[in-house]
């Protein structure tokens, strides 16, 4: 077992993990942050996306020990007081999702993308989200949510 400390959603969290344990399993099982979902466990579907040191990563492909000393933001960290963040609000307004399983990955990936590209247009957003799979919506409502958040961001 390896002792690690990770800053998760702003708080220092200590854990003792097997070297083989993924970051996703550490977040879900050890820290009870079950908002991070596992859709494929081989890095394709994007449901498990979290932000590590400012960059979106697949937490199913990263080991917990690799995250030692890093800052991790999960979907729970984007609405710390239960209040929806601006992107989450825009996605609610846009009826972005259905079953909700892919949702945390899209929310995290789009948050990271919009913070770097606040003026992104539809095609750029589609490409930025093309590593996240949704089986319910046909994507249009998700893209509309991100576009709405970008537009509202520009108005502020």
């Amino acid at each position, binding site marked *: 077992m390896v002792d690690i400390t990770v800053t998760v959603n702003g708080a220092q969290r200590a854990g003792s993990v*097997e070297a*083989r*344990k993924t970051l996703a399993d550490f977040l*879900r*099982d050890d820290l*009870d*942050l*079950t*908002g*991070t*979902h*596992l*859709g*494929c*466990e*081989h890095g*394709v*579907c994007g*449901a498990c996306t979290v932000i590590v040191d400012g960059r979106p990563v697949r937490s199913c492909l990263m080991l917990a020990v690799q995250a030692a000393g890093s800052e991790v933001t*999960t*979907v*729970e960290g*984007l*609405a710390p007081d*239960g209040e*929806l963040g601006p992107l*989450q609000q825009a*996605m*609610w*307004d846009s*009826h*972005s*999702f*259905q*079953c*909700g*399983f*892919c*949702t*945390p990955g899209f*929310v995290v990936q789009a948050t990271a993308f919009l913070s770097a590209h606040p003026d992104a247009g539809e095609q750029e*957003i*589609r*490409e930025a*989200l*093309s*590593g*996240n*799979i*949704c*089986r*319910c*919506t*046909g*994507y*249009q*409502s*998700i*893209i509309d949510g991100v576009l709405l958040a970008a537009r509202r961001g520009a108005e502020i």
Partner: protein
Amino acid sequence: MTQIAAERYTGASVKRSEDPRILTGGGRYVDDIKLPGMLHAAFVRSPLAHGRVLAVDATAARELPGVVAVYTGADMATMTIPGQDPLFAMMGGGGPAPEYTLLATDKVRFVGDPVAIVVAESRYLAEDGCELVEVDYEDLPPVATAATALDAGSPPLFANLGDNIIGPHKRTEFGDVTGTFAGADLIEEFHIDVHRHQNVPMEGRGIVASHDAETGTMTVHAATQSVHVTRMGIAMRLGMEADKVRVLAGDIGGSFGLKIGASREEIAVAAASRDLGRPVKWTEDRGENLSASGHAREESFDVKAAISKDGDLLGLDVAMVIDIGAYPVMGTMVPAIVEAMLPGPYKLAALGFESTAVATNKASYIAYRGPWASETFVRERVLDLLAKDLGLDPLEIRLRNVAPRTDPPFPMVTGRPLAGVTTRESLERVAQMVDIPAFRRRQAEERARGRYLGIGLATFIEAAPGPRSPEAGSGPMGMEFMRLRLEEDGIVTLFTGQMPHGQSHQTTLAQIAADEFGVPFGQVRVVVGDSDVVPFGLTGGSRSATMTGGVALHGARQLKGKVLDFASVLIEASAADLEIVDGQVQVVGDPDTGIPVGEVARQAASGEFGADVDTSFEVEASFDGGEGGWSGGSHCAIVEVDVETGIVTVERYVAAEDCGALINPAVVEGQIRGGIAQGIGAVLLERSAYDQDGNYQSATFMDYLLPTACEIPRFEIAHLETVPLDADVNFRGVGEGGMIVAPPTLVNAIEDALAPFGVRIYEQHLPPARILELIDAADSQSTSSVD
């Protein structure tokens, strides 16, 4: 004081009450459940398509620290009741019943067939344990295709059957088939294939089972489309009384037909929990989901079409072979629905239909969004092929053959009346939306520049719920139940057997009940997912809009009647003079007399009223679907095919849909778009592929390709709401239509794009490599005919 008219929620895109939870990571899916002392299960699965199990040695696995138990197929057979798949058993699947065990004992029948279950302190350790289970197999010749299975000499999957025919050949004729074909100007024949593909919800299957030996009860947390069907399945196979099994479900990460009832793995997990006296969790991983959860649609059709030289489709004679995979679940039930639906909205006067269902060494055929969809693919593909041969426009041949809307309604040749069907209108609407003549001009210009654009059109109807048949005593889809209760805090609680997994029932049912009862939307609570609390029900078959929307409306009306009766005592006015507006009971038009509905409930509960006053504000409602009706629509796609790479780009996609009155337009459009996206995936990307030996080839998302935001275009959707049939309930189901009609729409467009090459398409899966083969084959054919 100005009276504010109550807002009407039904028909508005009310924001989903589900969303704040799921957007913040607060959803509760089955894999999020953690119980004290919970163990984790993993399955040892067959690497062979077909083999004899000679020995299973679990000694080393059992010795691994952290492994708590290993159950082989033989162990499991002593812990469970033998039987068929619970869904198959409940629906009376028909055909000869093969004998097999919950986990494989004598034989394995597909790659991924479960052989043993390992239960350990963590999923990591359970998977380590699986690695240590030694299974000796003897290879048997695989039955990898339906053609092999049809051969009486093929090795039988099931010893008690002797061959691989699971649904024996059956033929039915509707109308005068012989006479129609004898009198036709032309008879054309086609062979059409539909390929194997699958549901792929983003969340796989999963279960946490927890047996309490003290009380003899089993609590199951499940991902399911029906807590009751799961309860029945687990009780049946564990030999328990159904009332000793409680099934709970929270959020569910999609299903599309996959998660109905209780699968073999889920039953094994429940049995393990009972044996160990500890909770056991199993979360299906993606490899298991793709290889072993089940597949759909592998069917082939020999079609004979009788036509007039003017383009009247007079008769069809269709022979279907369905490959149900290894174990009967849904496959044997599909041909009857295909048969009933094949005429579609057309005035086809004769149909001969025959079918045979065969077992093969592949994953079992399960329900997938519009399980009968191949009838639409076949019919709409054949119409385009015929139009081409007759020199007719695809729109023209459809308009020519659409049944007229008559009174009494024109009956399909297979029986059901086409009451209220708006196919003509939806065809005309999509044609107008895309402006076909303008497209044809652009198509010709682009072809001259070496760009290949095509347009495709297809139409469908769906019995969601279907029309009430004049002679039938019951409604079109059985009964739907709901319990409704007014609480003392003024909340109206609906208890429904629907088990939403993306359909937004917590929002849509609340909209209907809020309007009908007279409270704000936020004052209605929808309770789902507890078999001890909710009435029997199932989310599936696009039934909820009519059936559950209807029972919510009628139930709310019933509950309101009770409240008004009681309030008439309080307000001292006749119930007929009272109304409920914005949560207040009042004399019609006089808000000053208003009493909050919660106050009415509180006063009733005070016990001050005599026995002759009904003070219970709970009703049990049921609804039989009323007059029912069809949903349906027409879709049109414009595609570009890159003839160098074979890549198809969907440039534009329009749909004119009629699902009657819309409850929540954003929810309806979400269902339509999601269905179309799955249809696009099915044609351009997705395939559950096996090699010639039955080895599964698509067990990761690098092999089973799903569409992403870059392959799916924006969809333009128009709504027709033209023909109400029922006095109150004209919402119709819209869950499956997109997936039913998108494949023929797209394939028709691709064939149109490739018309200059003379390409004809008789299949549904058209990835780039196949497009190039079709172009090459057509090229060489035309070259050789020139030679």
